[in-house]
């Protein structure tokens, strides 16, 4: 009797709703929390970042044009499909982050709950941050928040799933599209998350996931003229890199969410600032005519 040959998974990028290998052909070794070999992940290159931005730009009109109610449904659906894949996520979290089974379950719960929480915000944020403004004249004056556009995110390096969901969900739920570079050392939960996105009615290109080193893609995303905003949460604690990325982002006046001094505690109540930071306020003056 022959022993069965392992069918190993190839971990790939997620761009425009497809799972391509890196254009460069490079991959890198991913070790588990104990330093043992776990898998080879795709090492995204500058050109993968370019393709991802292109995909995100293409997806933007469709995604931002959907009703907020429909975006809520879709983000909620992501949570549903994640729930379905519990064992896979728990396993990935245990290996990647070195958590105990019980702790991994808790982190997964928090990630799923966070998606549900943000899904609920989709059709409420407009009422909270927009509205009718009092003006001293015969006008009706109205403000509504609109999505910023294509947002590039450097995802947290430590918290590979809860952190990723916490930076991603608030940005897409308001109608932005995203290019996100994952945790360098812990990319596998993000790849599994990409598989969830691909099977949960999220249109291709709304979320594009690049595994690899932020150093090889983030500068290109920061300087890209077709990227409208940049979230540097994943550069936490590295003031020098953060400064150079902010500088690159200045050319087309990107919105920048600056890098925190240390990675935040993702279990805390997230608040709404991650949503409002990537919204633009549109104000309309309308003559009353009386």
């Amino acid at each position: 009797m022959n022993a069965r040959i392992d069918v190993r998974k190839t971990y790939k990028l997620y761009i425009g709703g497809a799972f391509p290998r890196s254009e460069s052909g490079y991959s890198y070794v991913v070790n588990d929390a104990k330093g043992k070999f776990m898998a080879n992940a795709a090492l995204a290159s500058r050109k993968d970042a370019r393709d991802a931005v292109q995909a995100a730009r293409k997806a933007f009109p469709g995604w931002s044009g959907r009703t907020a109610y429909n975006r809520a449904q879709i983000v909620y659906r992501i949570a549903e499909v994640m729930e379905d894949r519990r064992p896979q996520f728990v396993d990935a979290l245990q290996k990647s982050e070195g958590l105990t089974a019980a702790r991994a379950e808790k982190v997964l719960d928090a990630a799923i709950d966070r998606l549900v929480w943000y899904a609920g915000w989709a059709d409420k944020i407009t009422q909270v941050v927009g509205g009718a403004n009092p003006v001293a004249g015969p006008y009706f004056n109205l403000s509504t928040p609109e999505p910023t556009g294509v947002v590039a995110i450097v995802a947290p390096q430590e918290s590979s799933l809860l952190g990723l969901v916490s930076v991603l969900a608030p940005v897409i739920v308001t109608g932005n599209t995203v290019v996100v570079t994952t945790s360098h050392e812990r990319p596998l939960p993000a790849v599994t998350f990409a598989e969830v996105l691909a099977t949960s009615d999220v249109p291709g290109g709304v979320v594009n996931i690049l595994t690899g080193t932020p150093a090889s893609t983030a500068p290109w995303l920061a300087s890209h003229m077709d990227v409208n905003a940049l979230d540097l949460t994943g550069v936490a604690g590295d003031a020098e890199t953060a400064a150079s990325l902010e500088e690159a982002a200045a050319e087309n006046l990107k919105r920048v969410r600056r890098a925190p001094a240390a990675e935040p505690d993702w279990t805390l109540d997230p608040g709404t600032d991650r949503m409002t930071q990537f919204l633009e306020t549109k104000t309309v003056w309308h003559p009353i005519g009386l």
Partner: protein
Amino acid sequence: MTSTAAPSPTTIAGSTSFDDITASNASLRRFLHGLPGVDQVGAEARAASLGTRSIKTTAKAYALDLAIRMVDLTTLEGQDTPGKVRALASKAMRPDPADLSCPQVAAVCVYPDMVGVAKETLGSSGVNVAAVATAFPSGRAALDIKLADTRDAVEAGADEIDMVIDRGAFLAGNYLQVFEEIVAVREACGDAHLKVIFETGELQTYDNVRRVSWLAMMAGGHFIKTSTGKVQPAATLPVTMIMLEAVRDFREATGQMIGVKPAGGIRTAKDAIKYLVTVNEVAGPDWLDPDWFRFGASTLLNDLLMQRTKMTTGRYSGPDYFTLD
């Protein structure tokens, strides 16, 4: 390789007179069907392999500028307004207002009634005005209407005329009719250059592309052009390669150089560079010049400009920074 053996010198008789060949439909047919057939699989494989060349750094910068200089910036819509044509003509003269080193395009391509507007805007900038004539895009009209259409465009100041052939007549085997039509339009063009559009997407086979190329070259076209842009598929790399082989062989046989213009469906700088590689490899470097090779395109220019900006600034550019047309 799918090279064509040049027709035997006795046929051509060492001069540029094709009177023997074009004496009757039968002799013309005999000549065109005597051209070597195109190996379809071989041609497609060759074109695909030419598309894999890697063009980087200084070569890429040169190719991008050359491609911009070769663009016939085109608008052929029912909704064209004088305002739109003026905007397009301004863009033709200065494609990238943010960069003075960016070259201007070769020509602006419009419908005959817009030639005056384009000419007025372009003035003496050196950018030509090309007009599509002869009942573009179908080519289904009486000959005198086609000729009147051509004369109108030339009188309005067109420097180049893009005519369409009668595909119905060609496919029916009335080669002489097609030939005589091209000759008549060439006469009506006067000093204007004549580009002959084949609409290769309607010609069915590569053999037909080779035949019609020879037909148009013998009839006196200055340029042979793949498509109107109104029919899918428009320009493809294999079709353009076969036309380039034809102009190469024609020069070998007669010493006369004919230009080639693929049009329609070329949207990215990457595609444009593939075409330039093919021009260089198949026809030769002599054709790497806006006088002998053109791109009929509209969206291509923006991608060329974005790539050019990427090369000069080192960061990726976006469509927000170029005009939509």
